[in-house]
C-alpha cells in the first residue's frame, strides 16, 4: 500500500487529490494536508480585484504540494488552453485539469472540446488531466493524444451521489493504460472506497470535504476509505455469489438428516 505510483512523471504516495473550492477558509488547507498526506491540490483561475483583501490561497499551500490548475469556467477548447497557460504562468506548474462545460445545469463536461484542448496542451508540454463524462472512446482518444491521466466523473459535480457511472467507468479502467482518477460525485467515504475497489488509480474530491461541518475530519475519513479500498483492490476483490457458503464448519455430528426440515427440497 505504501508503494509509490507514478503520474505524469511524478512519484506519489497518496491516491487522494483534493479540490479547494467552496472551503469556508483556506486556513484549513495546511491541516488537511498534514492529516491526510495528500500531495496534489486543485485551484481555479480568476480575476483578482484591486480592493480585495481576501485570503490568498497560495499563502496556505506548501511548496512541496503539486498544484493542478483547473480550467473551470472555460466553455470551449480555446478558452481552456488560455486559462491553462495563465494558470501555469502563476503556479509554475504544468499540471492542468481540463474542465470544459458548455452546460450550467449539470456542469456536464464537453468531451469533444476536451480532446481538442488536450491535444493542444500536450503539444505545448503540459501534463494534461482531462475531466470527462465517462466514455471509453473519448478516453482512448485522450490516451492517444498524450493525456497524463483520465478523469471520468463518478456523478455530476457537487451531487454527492457516488459512483453512479460504474458501468461506464469500468471499461475505461480496464482498457486504458494511463491512470484513471475518478473525479466528482464522491460524497462520502464509502463512495471513495468503492472507486478504489474498482481499480481507480486515485480520486479527486472537493464538495464533500469543503461543505462538511468539519472539512478536516471529513478529509481524514475519506483518506482512510481511499487507503482501505486500495488495499482491498490490490489483494483482489472477491466475486459475489448467489447462494450462501458456510464460513463456519457445519456441525458434522448432528447426523439425523431426516429431522432436518430446513432443506428447500420440494
Amino acid at each position: 500500500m505504501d508503494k509509490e505510483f507514478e503520474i505524469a512523471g511524478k512519484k506519489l504516495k497518496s491516491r487522494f487529490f483534493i479540490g479547494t473550492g467552496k472551503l469556508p477558509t483556506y486556513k484549513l488547507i495546511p491541516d488537511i494536508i498534514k492529516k491526510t498526506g495528500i500531495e496534489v491540490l486543485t485551484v481555479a483561475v480568476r480575476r483578482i480585484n484591486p480592493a480585495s483583501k481576501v485570503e490568498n490561497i497560495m499563502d496556505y499551500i506548501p511548496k512541496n504540494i503539486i498544484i493542478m490548475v483547473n480550467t473551470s469556467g472555460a466553455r470551449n477548447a480555446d478558452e481552456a488552453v488560455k486559462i491553462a497557460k495563465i494558470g501555469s504562468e502563476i503556479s509554475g506548474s504544468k499540471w492542468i485539469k481540463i474542465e470544459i462545460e458548455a452546460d450550467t445545469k449539470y456542469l456536464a463536461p464537453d468531451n469533444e472540446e476536451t480532446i481538442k484542448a488536450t491535444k493542444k496542451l500536450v503539444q505545448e508540454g503540459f501534463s494534461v488531466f482531462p475531466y470527462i463524462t465517462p466514455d471509453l472512446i473519448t478516453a482512448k482518444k485522450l490516451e492517444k493524444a498524450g493525456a497524463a491521466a483520465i478523469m471520468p466523473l463518478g456523478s455530476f459535480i457537487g451531487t454527492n451521489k457516488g459512483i453512479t457511472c460504474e458501468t461506464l467507468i469500468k471499461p475505461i479502467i480496464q482498457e486504458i493504460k494511463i491512470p484513471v482518477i475518478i473525479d466528482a460525485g464522491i460524497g462520502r467515504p464509502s463512495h471513495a472506497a468503492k472507486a478504489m475497489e474498482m481499480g481507480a488509480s486515485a480520486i479527486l474530491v472537493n464538495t464533500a470535504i469543503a461543505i462538511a461541518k468539519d472539512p478536516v475530519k471529513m478529509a481524514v475519513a475519506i483518506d482512510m476509505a481511499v487507503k482501505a479500498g486500495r488495499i482491498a483492490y490490490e489483494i483482489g476483490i472477491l466475486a459475489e455469489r448467489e447462494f450462501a457458503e458456510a464460513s463456519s464448519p457445519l456441525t458434522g455430528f448432528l447426523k439425523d438428516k431426516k429431522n432436518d426440515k430446513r432443506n428447500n427440497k420440494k
Partner: protein
Amino acid sequence: MKLNGKEIKNKNIKTLMDIIVLYNYDIKNIAILVNDHVVKKKQWKSYRLSENDEIEIIGFVGGG
C-alpha cells in the same frame, strides 16, 4: 484604460508595475494580461501602457 473590466484613470500609471504598486497587488501569485496577452513578470517594470489597453490581473482561488 481598463483594469479587470473597469475604466481607470490616473496620470501616474505608466507601466504595469505602477498598477501593481498603486493597487497594492501581491506580485507573488498573479499573472497579467494586456489586451489578452500574457506579459511575463520580468517585463512588468518596463511594459509601457497606452490609453486603450485592457489589463487583466489574474490569480488563484479555491477550485475543484
